[in-house]
């Protein structure tokens, strides 16, 4: 199994560390801009797209649509949103993340 995390920010880095430490599953990270190219190149089984409602909502929707259009039905694609203004630190529970990528 291989996971693609779409978010080059601090949150993406934290989640990447959590996944690697807790599951040792190979994880690749990319920006929204490079997400489709990375997806096509790496053939991940799971894609987790982070979006900030306040800033990148539209970009995240586009990223998710582009990847869904290219993905086979076996690939699991999840989008997780958070509000940068309200959620100041790590906005997502670890369990929610792992559930989102079917790890628990």
């Amino acid at each position, binding site marked *: 199994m291989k996971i693609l995390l779409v978010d080059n920010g601090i949150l993406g880095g934290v989640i990447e560390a959590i996944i690697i430490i807790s599951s040792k599953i190979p994880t690749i990270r990319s920006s929204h801009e490079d997400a*489709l*190219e990375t997806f*096509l190149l790496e053939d991940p089984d799971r894609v987790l797209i982070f979006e900030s409602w306040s800033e990148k909502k539209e970009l995240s929707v586009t990223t998710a649509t*582009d990847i869904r*259009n*290219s993905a*086979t039905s076996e690939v699991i694609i999840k989008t997780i949103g958070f509000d940068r203004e309200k959620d100041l630190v790590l906005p997502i529970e670890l369990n929610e993340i792992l559930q989102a990528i079917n790890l628990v």
Partner: protein
Amino acid sequence: MKNIILVVEDKIEEQMIAKNIVLESGKKIIIAGTLEKAEEFIDKFNDKLYGIMTDIHLPINDTWTEASANGLSVVITALRLGIPCVVCTDDVAHGARYVAHILSRLEQLSSRKIPTATSKNWADAFKKLSSLLEES
């Protein structure tokens, strides 16, 4: 390795038909529902594109006019960049028979084939794209 096929089509149900055909062949697919998205993808994936299958009639602001035969722009870009391209459309349906004449003229000017699969037959379009590549 050139293993990505760009499908330019605005209708989701047609996109899914094309997608199944492409994925069954073992190729990868990217889908553009608008001319703008198609141009963005061609810019980005130009050197990885195996070929393009494009509709000709893409809506402008969700309306259909003869002027919306803007998929011709995709064909011209493909010819300019040397990317094999097949047209998958029903030009009569939208009252734009002139499209066939333009495609014919483009073939003459470029000395390249631009096969056409009518009535949204994506399987035929894919077959013609594969033949085009074998010939070249």
